[in-house]
């Protein structure tokens, strides 16, 4: 999996992922979110546009990130989940926890 982070004004960081968010990649995502929050970006968007697979390990990393950002007064939002990611969110009853935004750039537009 490939990772990159784009920083925006207002304490927003967009984490772009490409590939499979599985047990191999989950730890790296947790670390990236923790670093973004520690560097003053507690509002994190995880851009899932190019994630063609996510399992429960990847979901665990998102939940970890959600808790990390909220403890810092921010939030974690997801953007553009693919069909497989939506299926996992649906079957684990996590759709109500992670509202999916159409694009990473709009996830924090309204606060």
């Amino acid at each position, binding site marked *: 999996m490939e990772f990159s982070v784009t920083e925006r004004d207002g304490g927003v960081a967009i984490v772009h992922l490409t590939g499979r968010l*599985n047990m*191999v990649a989950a730890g790296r995502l947790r670390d990236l979110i923790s670093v973004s929050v520690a560097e003053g970006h507690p509002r994190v968007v995880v851009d899932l546009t190019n994630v063609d*697979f996510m399992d429960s*390990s990847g979901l665990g990393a998102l939940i970890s990130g*959600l808790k990390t950002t909220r403890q810092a007064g921010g939030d974690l939002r997801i953007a553009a989940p693919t069909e*497989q990611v939506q*299926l996992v969110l649906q*079957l*684990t009853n*996590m759709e109500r926890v992670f509202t999916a935004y159409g694009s990473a750039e709009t996830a924090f537009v309204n606060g």
Partner: protein
Amino acid sequence: MGEPARHTLQLESPPGDVNAVHDLLDCVWADVTGLSMRDRVSFETALIELASNIIGHADTGSGVTCTLTIEITEDRMEATLRDTGECGNIDLRQRSMPDELAESGRGLALIQALVDDLDYSQEGNLNRWHITRKRES
């Protein structure tokens, strides 16, 4: 489709990881026509959860060797995994999802939601796992 499409993989972890299972599935999807997207993503998700569980929990310190066989027929998708991990008392009663902020504990419940049958048995010193999903297409 005539003969069942069968693919096998022997995985030693470490250094191998679940990406080898994804790569095998890419070969399966290239080999089998007519599978729906829902069937593919459901089977792949269940199989990766199962393989992750074996790699992540069955390693007693000396690594784990896992032999995977995938068979796709006209009406079903099946996978059998045999691993050298520690044999345990496996409880496969219907699982429920944990608290929504729990960071783990969803794997078996997710598998059960995605396949029609999940079975575990012991074959000598090996653990044998088997999943079956009936095809919708």
